[in-house]
């Protein structure tokens, strides 16, 4: 049996991003996988010393274009905690609405790409068609389809009018109706099951030891969702973390699809319970001290460490993104897999390389 090394990426039809894996294969079976990163490394954390703490919001939003709102929310929360600012309730609810809409569009994007990875083109097209509705809501309420840029230190930049809140309620009901048949296809289709069930199994213990986060962790039976920490308005919203127990690609897939419905439900609750009031409080002075803050991103737990020294520039901003945590589990599940399954396995952790390398 001869060993050969096959490069997977950086420019690969399945991946929209330059993920590079050096796969050592014996015949068709992968025996070792080594990641090669750095194709998207920009040095974003280093910009913290040159931008003041307001400007840094726009930099952290561009860590990742898919979940930009959640990055900004996490950073703003950290700075607000340092400055002792109490964000108005309405602003907290608006942040939840935007961030959950981001989760919906991120999961739909991923589910579409995942369907595309095993050649299910029509499902990919259908899911992305539904996703466009979410993008339209983003554009109508925030002015940009992808990077909504609504978070500022102390609150949010703009309001959503009552009419638009009603319209969003109507829209998400329709999105739910359109998604239900897709859920049946994604969970019951023979081909999809053949490609995902029992592939890339991560046991409950191994998953935790390797530091997995988000749907990868919950797909292996850990009911851990950072939203349970009740940041923003999650203390008044009801939800249960979505858990599946098999730890294979099928489970992770199902977690994400069920989370899409859950996020739509959270948006509905938030719109029904949103109080009226101020949008933002004005920050005074400069932040001082250090803090670690976590939020739940579509891909998992997002960790920010912010250190400020009373000056206008933060001293250090450290960003640990969920994909960074999910790469070791990916390396653990690849050995033993067939070469043809590698794209499916690599996508099953929902890799976001621009997050990983910053």
């Amino acid at each position, binding site marked *: 049996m001869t060993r050969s090394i096959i490069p997977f990426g950086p420019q690969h039809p399945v991946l929209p991003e330059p993920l590079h894996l050096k796969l050592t294969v014996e015949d068709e079976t992968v025996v070792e996988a080594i990641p090669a990163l750095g194709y998207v490394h920009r040095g974003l954390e280093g910009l913290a010393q040159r931008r003041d703490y307001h400007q840094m919001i726009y930099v952290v939003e*561009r860590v990742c274009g898919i979940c930009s709102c959640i990055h900004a929310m996490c950073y703003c929360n950290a700075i607000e905690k340092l400055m002792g600012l109490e964000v108005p309730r309405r602003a907290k609810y608006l942040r939840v609405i935007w961030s959950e809409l981001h989760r919906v569009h991120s999961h739909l994007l991923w589910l579409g790409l995942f369907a595309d990875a095993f050649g299910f083109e029509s499902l990919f097209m259908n899911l992305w068609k539904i996703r466009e509705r979410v993008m339209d809501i983003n554009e109508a309420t925030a002015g940009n389809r992808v990077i909504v840029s609504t978070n500022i230190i102390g609150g949010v930049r703009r309001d959503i009018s009552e009419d638009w809140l009603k319209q969003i309620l109507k829209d998400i009901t329709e999105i739910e109706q359109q998604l239900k048949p897709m859920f049946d296809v994604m969970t019951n289709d023979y081909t999809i099951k053949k490609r995902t069930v029992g592939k890339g199994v991560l046991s409950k213990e191994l998953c935790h030891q390797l530091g997995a986060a988000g749907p990868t962790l919950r797909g292996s039976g850990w009911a851990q969702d950072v939203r349970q920490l009740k940041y923003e308005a999650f203390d008044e919203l009801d939800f249960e973390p979505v858990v599946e127990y098999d730890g294979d690609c099928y489970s992770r897939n199902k977690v994400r699809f069920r989370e899409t419905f859950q996020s739509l439900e959270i948006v509905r609750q938030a719109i029904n319970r949103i109080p009226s009031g101020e949008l933002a409080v004005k920050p005074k002075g400069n932040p001082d001290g250090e803090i670690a803050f976590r939020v739940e991103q579509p891909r998992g737990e997002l960790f920010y460490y912010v250190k400020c020294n009373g000056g206008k520039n933060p001293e250090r901003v450290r960003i640990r993104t969920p994909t960074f945590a999910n790469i070791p589990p990916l390396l653990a599940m690849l050995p033993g897999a067939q070469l043809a399954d590698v794209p499916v396995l690599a996508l099953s952790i929902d890799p976001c390389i621009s997050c990983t390398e910053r």
Partner: protein
Amino acid sequence: MKFDLQKWINEGRLKSPWVVHFNCGSCNGCDIEILDCLTPVHDVERFGIINVGNPKQADVLLVSGTVNHRNKTALKNIYDQMQHPKAVIAIGSCGLSGGIFYDAYNVVGGVDKVIPVDVYVPGCPPKPEQIIDAVLVALGKLKASLEKSDEAPGQETAPAAGEQPAA
């Protein structure tokens, strides 16, 4: 009437441009908008635009994001593998100049620092309509260069594949 093979190929090139997409240090914002163009709402295939994975079969290169020290060689490789005539479209503020990351330590700058760019699409990220429009603008440029090479005296056909254009 004599059948002109080259004319036939050129027509096909302009009617159905194949694009290849390379993400070079982008935040994904532009990439998902490029993918959005393929989906039913925007549907670029009505213009005959097809996204392919292989640069050797592509006419148009879409680049999103800033160039950094590692991916500049990958970008150059992909550009060199493409056959003539080819067009390059830089997408998003980062692809134009480095954008918000212009002074980060690992950023070289815009795409035009490494390869020649034909069409620039501003925006962070640009809307799918802008990207589709940019591909059509690039086609106009391709058409002009094809016509120029057809009319050039002393040249029987369009430049052979792989030939470098006069600097």
